[in-house]
């Protein structure tokens, strides 16, 4: 019975996703068509004047910009439905292979910072919530508010200045050591290069989950049964472990899954600062040069990524919280 429900749930979600994907892609395409960047102008740059009109026409054909916008979109959609994301104009390479190449780096980075920010964010939220109103609570709260409004690239540059320039502990950017051949690169090297970008993302990612957990902990601690437990003499971590953990951990995890979108956005900025070779770098290039196939390819991919995050979040809620099944809200 429950399995059937989950099946229905997933089916419904997939349908929703298809509609969402179409809307996002269409919207992105419309946005790019309004972009002031002419891909041919951007590709030719200063060479504009040494290239003849005949050659420019050939280029327009190659770039597929000689057709109407509607036709261009239909062409893309047709290709997409046949499982082909096209060729990037900028990289002259299959969009799918660029995404494959780049996603691994991005994924490792995002996974690590997601886990770190999850653990720290939850812990901070619990500490703040349990000590509501204390100096610790206020400190954590202000920390979160400041972070929530701090751009990731700025944190990134600060970390670079402190840890790479002043202290020389970590490398400046890139995913591998300068000038080192890939078979000489060790795991340790790779981790060293990942620390600062991952730290940047983690620092930023903490605030959301901390504030959420703090609220949840406070709610739980204001209920009857906690007061009852307290009256029985339970307190501190023991009290929390017994009564608070289950009530706050899963909501926190699902909120954290739902933050995939922000994670992705943060990764784009962090990768720019650290010259980290992930998807973020590629999407910036694509946007700046009106590389429509690459841009749409990454849009499809990131939509899928964020959707999976949200789906997992909802699924968790659904499986774990009995009340959700009865249509109640917490």
């Amino acid at each position, binding site marked *: 019975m429950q399995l059937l429900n989950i099946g229905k749930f997933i089916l419904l979600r997939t349908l929703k996703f298809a509609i969402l994907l179409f809307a996002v892609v269409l919207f992105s395409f419309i946005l790019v068509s309004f972009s*002031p*960047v*002419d891909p041919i*102008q951007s*590709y*030719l*740059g*200063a*060479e*504009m*004047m*040494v*290239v*003849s*009109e*005949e*050659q*420019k026409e*050939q*280029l327009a*054909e*190659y*770039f597929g910009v000689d057709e109407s916008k509607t036709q261009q979109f239909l062409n893309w959609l047709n290709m997409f439905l046949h499982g082909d994301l096209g060729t990037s104009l*900028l*990289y*002259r390479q299959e969009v799918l292979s660029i995404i494959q*190449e*780049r996603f691994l780096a991005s994924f490792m980075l995002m996974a690590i910072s997601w886990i770190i920010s999850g653990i720290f964010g939850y812990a901070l939220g619990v500490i703040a919530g349990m000590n509501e109103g204390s100096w610790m609570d206020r400190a954590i709260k202000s920390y979160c508010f400041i972070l929530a409004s701090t*751009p990731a*690239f*700025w944190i990134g*540059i*600060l970390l*670079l*200045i402190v840890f*790479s*320039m*002043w202290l*020389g502990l970590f490398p*400046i*950017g*890139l*995913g*591998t050591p*300068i*000038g080192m*051949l*890939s078979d000489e690169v060790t795991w340790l090297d790779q981790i060293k290069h990942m620390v600062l970008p991952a730290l940047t993302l983690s620092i930023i990612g903490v605030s959301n989950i901390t504030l959420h957990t703090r609220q949840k902990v406070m709610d739980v601690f204001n209920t009857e049964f906690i007061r009852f437990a307290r009256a029985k003499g339970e307190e501190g971590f023991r009290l929390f472990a017994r009564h608070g953990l289950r009530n706050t951990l899963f909501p926190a995890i699902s909120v954290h899954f739902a933050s995939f979108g922000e994670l992705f956005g943060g990764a784009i900025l962090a990768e*720019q*600062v*650290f*010259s*980290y*070779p*992930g998807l973020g*770098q*590629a999407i910036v*290039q694509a946007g700046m040069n009106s590389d429509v196939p690459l841009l749409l390819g990454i849009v499809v991919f990131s939509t899928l990524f964020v959707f999976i995050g949200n789906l997992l979040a909802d699924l968790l809620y659904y499986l774990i919280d009995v009340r959700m099944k009865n249509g109640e809200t917490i």
Partner: protein
Amino acid sequence: MSVLIFACFLLVACTSQASDSETGKKKDSLVLAIGSEPTDGFDPTTGWGRYGSPLFQSTLLTLDRNFNVQPDLAVDYSVSEDGLEWTVKIRDDVKFSDGEPLTIEDVIFTFETAKNSQSVVDLQNLKKIEKLDAQTVKFVLERPQSTFLYTLTMLGIVPKHAYSENYRENPIGSGPYKLVQWDKGQQLIVEENPYYYGKKSPFKKLTFLFLSQDAAFLAAKAGQVDIVSVPPNLAKESISGMKLIALDSVDNRGIMLPFVKPGYDAEKGIEIGHEVTSDLAIRKALNIGIDRDKLVEDVLEGFGTPAFSVADKLPWWNEETVFEDGDTEAAEQILMDAGWRKNADGIFEKDGEKASFTLVYPASDQTRQSLAIAFKQMAKEIGIEVNTEGKSWSEIEEVMHSTPVVMGWGSHDPIEIYHLYHSKYRGQGYSNANYYSNKKVDQYMDQAIHAITPEEANEYWKKAQWDGETGFSALGDAPWVWLVNLQHLYVVNEHLNIGEQKIQPHGHGWPITEFIADWTWEE
């Protein structure tokens, strides 16, 4: 955003960084952060290395520091009387970095591949290629084109036997270096090509980093790179152990003034011309009244040179076109002589028409914006009213035939002049967008295109600018007000000597590696 970043740098500037200098052993590798990654790879047939130095490949001919044509892969070339047939003889002792010999088939293959590639490489005028013997090839053109010479200096030769779809990622060539590893989005590692036939560089290994501008600067501060390109606002920050090098360029900025009276080009369906700028007196007054040195000082923070043409200091540039500028009195005199009179606001008027126009600049480009605003103030001093307006490129494309625009060019190929000023290109996209036309100038430029030797061509290019009576320079019809040439800035390890460089083209970065064979490390 950039203000924040800059603030961080100021913070950092207070602490000095001791860079660990190599001791004892001779340094034979360099780390460079000189600019953007060629994302579409290292295939010359789609445009890699067009500015003289493909690094992995070599070209048939090359231009030395004074832009004289020198042989490279070719030992000799000749052009037929009608300018249609180019015969090139190549060396027989050249090997690719994989040890295979470079043959005439490779040359033919390269040009055919490039012609069919939809890219920045334009070989539309190349009709066919014939093999004459094992060392000689004949290129047949559709129309005479003396600038075909520059194509021969730009197109790196690729090996037929090792060319595939993936060539762009694994280039094999006969150039001074071979690619060892390309970590996309991060770095490029190259080593010397053991088979290279030319002068060898003392640096056996080079690592090019593709860092963002901020990260590159931090890396230099941390002593991790030997050469880094910097924007003007960071150039004045000193980095211990490094020196600033400012290279002159033809990376120019100027103002395109609509040349004809207002009208409508029915064929192209566009509004053209401008009432005020179609007056020669206005164009001349602006040219002579603008203080270019002041623009360099104020807008470029000193990192630039005054510009008087699209091709300053290149061999096809006419030196006579330089004049004493910043002369507001002379400018006003020119306007008075043409019948313009100042009104109560100090703005010139003629027949009820105010000397006023809108100047458009690409809103995304800070330098061009600053130039536009400085130009506006200088124009006001001579009684011409300029309103500035930032637009996107696609908006500019719609108005550029009837509105002055801040633009920038600067190529090592004089065909640029042809496209900018020849009347047959009027209104064709960015080519001659201001509808300039002068029969005499057209004739000179056609003669330049039909010329057999570069010397002869250059004579005609110069005459097209100014022949003593007419021309497209400010002395003649003045369809443009050229303002400045930017300098390209690099911060270089103080032990590294990169020697003399060519005048840099529009576009930063890779051109600096052209003379890497002459770089030295001095302790």
